[in-house]
């Protein structure tokens, strides 16, 4: 297999913040995509590539499932990135679209699909993917056709059954599973839906093989991951790290923390808060899950000493409540109750201890929606309550604090300069 493979960056190699890498430059840098076929599935399994959208489901297994069902499968690249703290898919699709298209084409060949749909929000990324498709040779007879479909920017659009609903011309709302997309997806066909970054890794594995992939990262978290790092760091951005890299190294690569660290959020709005001890946590899904964390779609957010975890939690809970599909009663009612209680705690304090119900409500909504939005919201809130209990207690007694007034934190809009290799 080619190349020593132990150098970073891999995906972000040759990245220019200002322009899209064309096909010629892409091929010079990475070489031709081999014709490939069904054998890619075993290579992906040996590589241990997991989905990079948050689920971390073994990618090879997903291919096998899509291939095993009756009918010609379809491939959907999930480039909808409604998670406010994530920017890596927009970066990949907007600047390095051929990496993603290669992986999607290779995956399609491996499972006998002839159609790839790249689902992406309109704007820079959609334009870049459209231009990139135009540069690639026309598919021959029996080849793989690739097209772009623009979808909305709501949080739930990225949920895979909601995405398939949107692509079918319906509202972008989740449907009950089973059937899973690999069983019955787009137009009733078995459908492989995966995150844009997952396909980008697959395109390189198709070229260089599993051993190359594993030359970086740990046994449990092989290869590299794109992490969007935001909050109290000098240079927020998308950084590619080897699996298992310590959080502290990631923050150094982002120019270091700009103030004393109060907490670190892993995995975004469906993720997990931890205290400053998490600086030593390795950035890999299995390593983080052992510690009660999750990498989610590759998100690390730093809350500085000047911020307020209570207002961050109240605001995120309300945001998630507004983003819910309005379909499932426990989520609709539970998230509103959780958000209202946290808002009251944050604004006026809570001497009666009513916010004690929040934890029970979090447990009550978990697992009771058609999708996992309530589970993610509950994880976010519960982990904050646990990691910062004294701060919540203090708010209960005294109401608003100085940190509440500050509008930094997870509220900060993600700038378009979020590009660092």
């Amino acid at each position, binding site marked *: 297999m080619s190349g020593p493979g132990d150098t970073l960056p891999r995906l972000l190699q040759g990245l220019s913040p200002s322009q899209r890498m064309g096909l010629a430059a892409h091929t010079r840098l990475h070489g031709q995509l081999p014709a490939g076929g069904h054998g890619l599935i075993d290579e992906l399994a040996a590589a241990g590539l997991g*989905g990079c*959208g*948050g*689920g*971390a*489901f073994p990618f090879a297994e*997903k291919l096998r*499932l899509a291939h095993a069902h009756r009918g010609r499968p379809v491939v959907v690249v*999930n480039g*909808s*990135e*409604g*998670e406010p703290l994530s920017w890596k898919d927009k970066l990949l699709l907007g600047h390095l679209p051929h990496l993603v298209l290669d992986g999607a084409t290779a995956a399609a060949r491996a499972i006998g699909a002839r159609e790839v749909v790249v689902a992406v929000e309109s704007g820079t990324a959609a334009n870049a993917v459209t231009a990139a498709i135009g540069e690639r040779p026309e598919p021959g007879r029996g080849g793989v056709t690739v097209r772009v479909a623009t979808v909305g920017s709501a*949080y*739930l659009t*990225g*949920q*895979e059954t909601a*995405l398939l609903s949107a692509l079918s011309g319906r509202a972008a709302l989740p*449907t*009950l*599973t*089973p059937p*899973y*997309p*690999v069983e019955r997806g787009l137009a009733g066909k078995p459908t492989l*839906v*995966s*995150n844009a970054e997952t396909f980008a890794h697959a395109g390189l594995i198709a070229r260089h093989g599993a051993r190359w992939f594993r030359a970086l990262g740990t046994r449990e978290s092989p290869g590299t991951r794109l992490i969007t790092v935001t909050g109290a760091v000098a240079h927020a951005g998308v950084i590619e790290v080897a699996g298992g890299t310590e959080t502290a190294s990631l923050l150094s690569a982002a120019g270091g923390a700009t103030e004393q660290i109060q907490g670190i959020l892993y*995995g975004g709005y*469906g993720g997990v808060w931890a205290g400053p001890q998490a600086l030593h946590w390795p950035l890999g899904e299995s390593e983080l899950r052992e510690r009660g964390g*999750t990498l*989610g*779609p590759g998100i690390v957010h730093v809350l500085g000493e000047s911020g307020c975890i209570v207002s961050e939690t109240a605001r995120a809970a309300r945001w998630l409540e507004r983003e819910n599909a309005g*379909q*499932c*009663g*426990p*989520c609709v*009612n*539970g998230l509103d*109750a959780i958000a209202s209680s946290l808002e009251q705690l944050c604004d006026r304090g809570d001497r009666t201890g009513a916010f004690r119900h929040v934890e029970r*409500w979090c447990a*009550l909504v978990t*697992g*009771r*929606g*058609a*999708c*996992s*939005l309530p*589970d*993610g919201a509950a994880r976010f809130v519960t982990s904050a309550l646990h990691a910062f209990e004294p701060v919540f207690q203090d708010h209960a007694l005294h109401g608003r604090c100085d940190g509440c007034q500050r509008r930094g934190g997870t509220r900060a809009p993600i700038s378009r300069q979020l590009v660092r290799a």
Partner: protein
Amino acid sequence: MSRVRVDPIRCTAHGMCAELLPERIWLDDWGYPVVNGEPLPPELIEHARRAAAACPVFALRLEKGSRPAGREPRLGVTLRG
């Protein structure tokens, strides 16, 4: 092996199921059913069938098979697959 499962999208909190199958179903703070998806013992199957039939919106299902009801292992567990 049968289990009960609720379709949370269809369910509109009529609450009949909790009355007819209290051994497996109770109502949350907002009147929506919380379902224990453990396999049903034979003596509960008829009650479960009646509870499913009583649901005005057909949200309660009696499922056969080894797949656990409720939270199956998901493909793409969180929001993005």
